[in-house]
């Protein structure tokens, strides 16, 4: 059709208004014309209009249909498809849920992974022209390692190199933040902040969420106590106060003015690092980092990270060359600090951090691997779903064939199937789209809780959503389109060949499909075993002995150094606070210490002891250390095994004392009592110490259990400006914490406390890494298992569907449903067992690697290694059982019947599609034969035989066609045609030696054909013997016919008797025998045969009829015959006018035999009414003078 015309038609239909009025005009015209015509025929005017409307049918209905068809034809089909798909979905809820979940998780996973890649590689920096931003590092003389800059180098690069438009520096630091006015969790805390050069915000050129960023010109360095808040800090600590600019906070005790809030999503320039909550000018470094007097001086060994903006139009390479040239000038000018140092410039967008720490190349590789892995997972999911859809489509193969034969366009069918897939995918896609927005939640549950927040800020932005949506579309197309195309190309020939009775060879499930399922199962076993080990280990950890009490302990930390305390003030603070805490009613004991259990970081120290074995160069032995006050052992519940605890008397100026853990004692003095032993701190010439006590081994961290050596130093002898309060409480520790906070606030209202926690919470966060590992392994394990289960289900389902006919035939041949089901399950279970076995071997290997991360649990934990396979085994069984169950429900007869109907309907499509020329010709021949055009039929069958030789049916039917031609032909032609019949039947028999049909055809031919055409009784007898061996029933039947033909009724009787004896349950055999007797007027024998049968099966319809027939023919047992015929009529379940007519005809004969002519006439009349073609009844009626 012409595209332009079609477009024009469609365009016209867009103008709904015009189309609407034209439609009305057309309808009106029609009605008037029709009315006018009726008026011409003499109908009254009003009546004519009424009739015209009636003839037209429902006006509204047609209007509606026109509207539907106008623009919405496609849409209408679409709506129908969607409805159909939804119904199909609801019919199979399990399938729908499995699809939604696997697809959703698969696509969503890709989205999440992409979210991370997006934030790592294409990190959205809310700065102006982020592509111009780079980072500058100095490369070390010998190693070439990138290092941060010293401040003076930074100034020179910024002011004198000309390599950059501008350079800014930043340096991370913790700060004590107090928000005056409110006293809550958020109002006073130890926060992570960055000291930034005063041009930092000018360089980035961001739009602040509130206020105005500070700049170099605002105030001289040291007088610029300004602060910029991060967006999160603004929300969390200030409730998003719109008048935030100008508010004053205390930073390390000094008032700072908040001038601005950074835009949402800006978390500093570093990708890997703590998220800063605040930025302060580096000019305030003496406040921000007390004691950092040298921060703004020096060249080598600096700590400034930089972000620089390139000169307009410059490339990174050119910028780097310029920077390197300038580095050479610096090296010449300051050889003592800068000799042989170079410069490195990297783009700021890709994983911005010191490349010595994180290599950009590794990031790209990791990202690519992540995306690849998630897409492969998705591909597997799609393959599974496509398999499922295919299995479903195969079930509907007959429906497809019928629709194609009725003229349904293939494109239309593809669209329908695709719509179904799309509708089926909608819940999955929704899940998928929701998943990336869970990323922050997932991240916060996976990332351990630290004092300062870390993470990759992978927030789902538009790009991530678009990517996820794209992947979802791709997935739907993949798992929808392939089955759609394949299913609509329904193999007509295959369907046909099944009608001919051939049992299609069962296709084995493809090897690839099997391998996929096996590997998915194996992988999920490994992951689930890993996850289960972690979970079990978490449980075990709770009951493990850590060496101290795990209940009723509160912790709270202070950092006096940041606040500018000197030692004397600090000691006084510690003493004041601890005295007041100990006086609280609910406090058992309290002390200071650092580090305490489950602190993120530990502290180490080297001990020098004469004679102790060590590998280190300076002769010291490294150990963990805690700086504690007296009473710490009690407060924590550590068990003193020998000697004494620290005392107040162990103060500065007295000899240094040390408490060691049991293991450390054993290491330092393997064979002697450690109490009173001496050593030196830090080095062979360090201060001397004496051991005063030994405590039981304790595990302060849950990461590393390899070492439990720990030394305890008295903080009275070794002052620290940051300590943690450890309080043993009587009741719940959380009840005491507010009072602890009040005590600290009373001692110093400007000092924030942080790290407020209980020991249970500490353990929780200490176990966070394991929990995260357990969650991740469990999540992916379950996902993998789900995918594998769906895959397994699909494999079994499709093999079941492919073999439905085979199974149906087997069951028809006597296999029980259970047999068939078992057979269907075997393949799936085999795959499942292989997968589980491989997975277990892998899991054993992996668990060895995990050994270091498992607490109080053997890596070959029997509960895990028995429980997981059993659970998975059950799932495997379920996944194979569910689809296999369908086999058991199979109704073999129904399965075959639908096939026959489908195949017959396929015929017209077959010829059209030219699927198979031979078959086509054959079908045409059958059609012509049915239409009694035997000449045409013979021509078509000849064609079929020529095109596709070797098909028994073609030869058989060609023989039939010749036979029918023979009957209508003249003598000469009979001779010609007759000779052709025999060879065709011969060939049919040769091709199908066990075909009853072929044997009967040849037998009849031998019996009926004249000798000249190849007929003859000898041939016939030989063929009869052959037929009898193939099918005894048919053989005996034909023997009777043959003997009658040969005029040997006794032999015929013998045959018929043998038939009914051999098949005592066959009513038909009795009917044959009874008819034989009736035909020979041996009515008593006929009645005897009939009665014998009726005794066994009184309700055999055909035998009941024989009673009537025998009575009607013989004139004997007339009443019984009438009753039998009336009963026969009542027994006819369906309306079968031919049988009814026959019964009435026989009743008429009975009436005649009784000389009841009115009955006879009435019955003959009924017979003719029911079947006007009933000649015998017609003749009888005429004879009686009726009609």
């Amino acid at each position: 059709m012409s595209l332009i015309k079609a477009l024009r038609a469609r365009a016209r239909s867009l103008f709904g208004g015009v189309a609407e009025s034209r439609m009305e005009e057309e309808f009106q015209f029609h009605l008037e014309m029709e009315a006018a015509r009726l008026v011409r025929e003499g109908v009254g005017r009003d009546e004519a209009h009424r009739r015209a409307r009636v003839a037209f049918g429902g006006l509204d209905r047609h209007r509606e249909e026109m509207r539907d068809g106008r623009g919405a034809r496609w849409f209408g089909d679409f709506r129908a498809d969607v409805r159909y798909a939804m119904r199909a979905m609801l019919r199979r809820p399990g399938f729908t849920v499995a699809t939604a979940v696997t697809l959703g998780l698969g696509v969503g996973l890709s989205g999440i992974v992409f979210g991370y890649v997006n934030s790592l590689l294409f990190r959205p920096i809310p700065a102006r022209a982020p592509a111009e931003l780079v980072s500058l590092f100095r490369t070390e003389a010998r190693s070439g390692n990138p290092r941060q800059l010293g401040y003076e180098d930074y100034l020179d690069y910024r002011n004198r190199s000309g390599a950059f438009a501008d350079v800014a520096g930043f340096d991370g630091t913790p700060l004590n933040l107090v928000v005056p006015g409110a006293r809550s969790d958020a109002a006073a805390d130890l926060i992570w902040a960055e000291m930034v050069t005063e041009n930092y915000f000018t360089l980035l050129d961001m739009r602040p969420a509130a206020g105005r960023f500070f700049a170099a010109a605002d105030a001289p360095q040291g007088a610029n106590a300004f602060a910029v808040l991060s967006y999160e800090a603004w929300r969390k600590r200030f409730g998003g106060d719109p008048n935030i600019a100008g508010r004053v906070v205390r930073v390390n005790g000094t008032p700072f003015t908040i001038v601005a809030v950074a835009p949402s999503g800006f978390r500093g320039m570093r990708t890997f690092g703590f998220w800063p909550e605040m930025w302060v000018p580096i000019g305030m470094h003496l406040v921000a980092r007390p004691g950092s007097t040298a921060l703004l001086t020096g060249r080598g060994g600096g700590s400034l990270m930089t972000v620089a903006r390139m000169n307009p139009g410059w490339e990174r390479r050119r910028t780097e060359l310029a920077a390197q040239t300038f580095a050479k000038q610096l090296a010449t000018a300051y050889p003592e600090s800068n000799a042989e140092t170079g410069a490195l410039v990297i783009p700021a967008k890709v994983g911005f951090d010191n490349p010595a720490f994180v290599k950009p190349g590794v990031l790209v590789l990791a990202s690519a691997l992540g995306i690849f892995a998630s897409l492969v997972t998705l591909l597997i999911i799609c393959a599974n779903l496509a398999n499922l859809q295919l299995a479903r489509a195969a079930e509907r193969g007959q429906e497809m064939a019928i629709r194609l034969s009725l003229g349904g366009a293939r494109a239309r069918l593809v669209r329908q199937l695709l719509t179904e897939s799309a509708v089926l995918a909608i819940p999955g896609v929704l899940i998928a789209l929701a998943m990336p927005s869970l990323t922050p939640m997932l991240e916060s549950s996976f990332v351990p809780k630290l004092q300062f927040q870390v993470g990759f800020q992978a927030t789902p932005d538009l790009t991530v959503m678009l990517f996820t949506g794209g992947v979802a579309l791709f997935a739907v197309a993949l798992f929808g389109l392939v089955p759609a195309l394949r299913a609509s190309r329904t193999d007509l020939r295959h369907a046909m060949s099944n009608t001919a009775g051939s049992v299609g060879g069962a296709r084995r499930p493809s090897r690839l499909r099997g391998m996929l399922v096996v590997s998915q199962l194996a992988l999920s076993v490994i992951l689930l075993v890993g996850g289960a080990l972690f979970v079990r280990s978490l449980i075990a950890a709770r009951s493990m002995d850590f060496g101290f009490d795990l209940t009723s302990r509160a912790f709270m930390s202070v950092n006096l150094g940041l606040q500018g305390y000197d030692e004397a003030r600090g000691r006084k603070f510690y003493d004041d606070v601890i005295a007041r805490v100990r006086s609280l009613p609910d406090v058992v004991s309290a002390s200071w210490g650092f580090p305490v259990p489950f602190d993120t970081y530990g502290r180490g120290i080297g001990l020098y002891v004469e004679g102790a074995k060590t590998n280190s160069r300076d002769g010291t032995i490294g150990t963990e250390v805690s700086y504690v006050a007296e009473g710490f052992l009690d407060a924590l519940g550590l068990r003193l095994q020998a000697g004494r605890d620290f005392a107040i008397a162990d103060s500065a100026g007295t000899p240094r004392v040390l408490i060691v853990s049991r293991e450390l004692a054993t290491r330092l003095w393997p064979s002697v009592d450690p109490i009173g032993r001496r050593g030196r701190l830090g080095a062979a010439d360090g201060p001397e110490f004496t051991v005063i006590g030994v405590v039981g081994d304790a595990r302060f961290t849950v990461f590393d259990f390899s070492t439990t050596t720990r030394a305890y130093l008295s903080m009275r002898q070794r002052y620290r400006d940051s300590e943690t309060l450890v309080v043993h409480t009587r009741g719940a520790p959380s009840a005491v914490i507010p009072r602890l906070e009040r005590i600290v606030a009373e001692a110093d209202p400007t000092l924030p406390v942080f790290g407020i926690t209980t020991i249970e919470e500490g353990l929780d966060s200490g176990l966070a890494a394991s929990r995260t590992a357990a969650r991740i392994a469990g999540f992916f394990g379950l996902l993998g298992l789900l995918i594998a289960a769906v895959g397994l289900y699909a494999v079994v389902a499709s093999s079941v569907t492919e073999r439905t006919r085979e199974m149906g035939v087997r069951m028809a041949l006597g296999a029980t449903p259970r047999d068939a089901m078992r057979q269907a399950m075997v393949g799936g279970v085999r795959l499942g067992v292989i997968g589980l076995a491989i997975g277990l071997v892998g899991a054993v290997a992996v668990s060895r690697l995990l050994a270091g991360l498992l607490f109080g649990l053997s890596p070959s934990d029997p509960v895990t290694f028995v429980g997981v396979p059993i659970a998975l085994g059950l799932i495997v069984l379920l996944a194979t059982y569910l689809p296999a169950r369908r086999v058991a429900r199979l109704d073999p007869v129904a399965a075959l019947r639908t096939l026959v109907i489908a195949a017959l309907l396929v015929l017209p499509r077959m010829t059209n599609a030219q699927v198979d020329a031979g078959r086509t010709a054959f079908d045409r021949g059958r059609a012509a034969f049915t239409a009694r055009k035997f000449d045409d039929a013979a021509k078509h069958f000849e064609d079929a035989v020529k095109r596709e030789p070797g098909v028994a049916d073609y030869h058989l039917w060609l023989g039939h066609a010749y036979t029918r031609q023979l009957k209508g032909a003249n003598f000469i032609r009979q001779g010609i045609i007759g000779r052709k019949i025999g060879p065709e039947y011969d060939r049919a028999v040769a091709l199908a030696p066990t075909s009853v049909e072929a044997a009967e055809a040849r037998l009849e031919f031998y019996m009926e054909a004249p000798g000249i055409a190849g007929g003859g009784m000898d041939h016939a007898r030989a063929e009869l013997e052959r037929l009898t061996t193939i099918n005894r029933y048919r053989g005996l039947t034909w023997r009777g016919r043959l003997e009658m033909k040969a005029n040997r009724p006794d032999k015929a009787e013998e045959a018929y008797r043998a038939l009914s004896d051999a098949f005592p349950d066959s009513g038909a055999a009795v009917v044959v025998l009874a008819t034989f007797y009736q035909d020979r007027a041996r009515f008593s024998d006929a009645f005897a045969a009939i009665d014998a049968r009726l005794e066994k099966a009184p309700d055999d319809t055909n035998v009941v009829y024989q009673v009537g027939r025998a009575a009607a023919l013989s004139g004997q047992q007339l009443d019984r015959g009438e009753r039998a015929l009336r009963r026969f009529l009542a027994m006819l379940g369906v309306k079968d006018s031919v049988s009814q007519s026959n019964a009435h005809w026989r009743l008429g004969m009975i009436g005649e035999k009784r000389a009841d002519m009115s009955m006879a006439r009435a019955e003959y009349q009924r017979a003719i009414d029911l079947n006007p073609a009933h000649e015998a009844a017609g003749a009888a009626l005429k004879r009686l003078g009726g009609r």
Partner: protein
Amino acid sequence: MSRHPQEPDALRGSIDLLILKALSLEPMHGWGIGLRINQISSGRLDVNQGSLYPALQRLEHNGWVESDWQSTENNRRARYYTLTKAGRKALGDEVERWKRFAETMALVLESGR
């Protein structure tokens, strides 16, 4: 859901076929097509007249017929439908297909007697 039962595919196809056949003689307006179908079939096929129009619309979408507004003998405006070249070819195909379908149906119905 569907506001009115849809005609089975076979019947819908046959209306299309009848229209194409009617138009194969000369261009015609909708009423005339209905009249002609009635005449050709000696009154045996009494097509619901209104259902001709959605069918015509369908055929026009397919590009098998074209329509334009012309004046009748009585000087009234009416929409005339003309068979296109594609329509003429489709008519041939449809006739062939219909015959095969009818043969097959006959085959199915007469077998198994």
